[in-house]
């Protein structure tokens, strides 16, 4: 199948290096300490952060740093064909782990010993790149909750189909069988914290693809910063100072 037309357009009309439209909103769940909605094209996720708070299960308490936990869930209606999976299947467990590990590194956990931070992400619509969208939503939610962090973490995926590196794969491109490289970076420190790839790819092309995904992450980071700034300004305005 042809994923990039001779004119250089992808199935959904994007250029190879073009990202889907992203949209973010802070404060979707008013009862949570921090929450955010993040959309990448048709992929839409909600993240909610509870904490830092008392550790619920005493045996898990860490005396030198905060305990970070994460749960990833997909809604039954999120995929094209309706799915009925019990909570906590293998795929969700793996993604929960990936999100937790990525975010734990950037949270200043040593500042909050003997406490717990819960991150819950819920996928409302899945159209490829849910991992990335979840990490982006969780970063925003953590920032909204006012949890001290080294930097924002942002994530984006890239692939390689029809000898062209493609940024931000959607579901159809993701299921095409080509490589799917998910990268997460700390944009200010310029460090990669998450890197996953399936399928195979020549080394010199891998470099290009990772480079492309990193550029995508940076673009997302700029957008997230804008959203945060806007939100902070609004809070300041409401406070009336």
């Amino acid at each position, binding site marked *: 199948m042809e994923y990039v037309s001779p004119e250089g357009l992808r199935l959904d009309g994007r250029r190879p290096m073009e990202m889907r439209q992203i949209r973010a909103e802070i404060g*979707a*769940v*008013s*009862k*949570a300490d921090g*929450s955010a909605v993040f959309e990448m094209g*048709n992929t839409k996720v*909600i*993240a*909610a952060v*509870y904490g830092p708070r008392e550790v*619920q299960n005493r045996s898990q308490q860490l005396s030198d740093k905060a305990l970070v936990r994460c*749960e990833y*869930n997909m*809604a*039954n*209606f*999120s*995929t*094209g064909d*309706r799915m*009925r999976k019990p*909570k*906590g299947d293998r795929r969700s467990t793996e993604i929960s782990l990936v999100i937790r590990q990525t975010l734990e590194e950037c949270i200043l956990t040593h500042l909050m010993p003997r406490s717990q931070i*819960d991150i*819950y*992400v*819920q996928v*409302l*619509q899945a159209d490829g790149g849910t991992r990335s969208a979840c990490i982006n939503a969780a970063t925003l939610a953590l920032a909204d909750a006012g949890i001290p962090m080294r930097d924002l973490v942002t994530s984006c995926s890239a692939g390689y189909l029809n000898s062209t590196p493609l940024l931000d794969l959607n579901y159809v491109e993701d299921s095409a069988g080509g490589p799917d490289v998910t990268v997460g970076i700390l944009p200010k420190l310029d460090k990669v914290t998450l890197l996953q790839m399936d399928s195979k790819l020549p080394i010199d092309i891998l470099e290009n693809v990772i480079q492309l995904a990193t550029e995508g992450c940076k673009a997302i980071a700029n957008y997230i910063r804008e959203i945060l700034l806007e939100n902070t300004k609004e809070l300041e305005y409401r406070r009336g100072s």
Partner: protein
Amino acid sequence: MVGLSLGEQHFIQGGIAQDLRCDGRKRLTYRPINVETGVIPQANGSARVRIGATEVIASVKAELGKPGVVQPDKGKVFIYIDCSSTAEPAFEGRGSEELSAELSAALHRCLLGAKSGAGAGIDRTSLVVVEGKICWDLYIDGLVVSSDGNLLDALGAAIKAALSNTGIPSVKVAPGASSDEQPEVDVSDEEFLQFDTSGIPAIVTLTKVGRHYIVDATPEEESQMSSAVSISINRKGHVCGITKRGGAGLDPSVILDMVSVAKHVSEQLTNKLDSEIASAEAEDES
């Protein structure tokens, strides 16, 4: 879980007794209701309902299936509710299973009628394509995104809104198939049949706190309840289903009184919902 001091508990109970609740409402006033339709593009119909800080999403997916042997002239409807852990950390893992099952069962009772399909708010005979062979199976999925009390009413409203947003593709049956073969069908992707939602009841939950009962309780008020009765009433004023939650016993005469109050409240709620749904649909189309 809500932790309230003794003083706060008295304050809530006293306020309800004096018909002035903590957020300034009267006992039988709802919080503002906000409806948005068409929020899940992949579904046949979907809606998001917000009541206060409670937010629920309902989606309807239609799949072609085979009617059951007992009721060959009726399609099947399934309701599954899921409580997302974003709403409450206690819903993590299997923590929400009990509540999800309770809500699903209550909605089943309120919307789908008896086992025979009699008295259902959703007309299941309209889902049949070829009697005994092909019918539409409706999968209604509810998701609680944020919980701030009164989940059942919100889910009921969301399902109603989602169903009125639902378009079921029209189906052409290929003629000439013999009676024991599975007939071939052609599902149109342009023509859609709208669903008749006028018979779908609204659910009103009356929460009893002290000697009085209130509608649309917040979690703080729910923590003070002795029992709650959810009554689903359709536009004609017929009671379609009743569910009682909470341990304390109720006097039968009180229950009858509650039903008549619920009937009165449901009229306002249905009108409010219908106008909200209509304006949401208008906005969705524009």
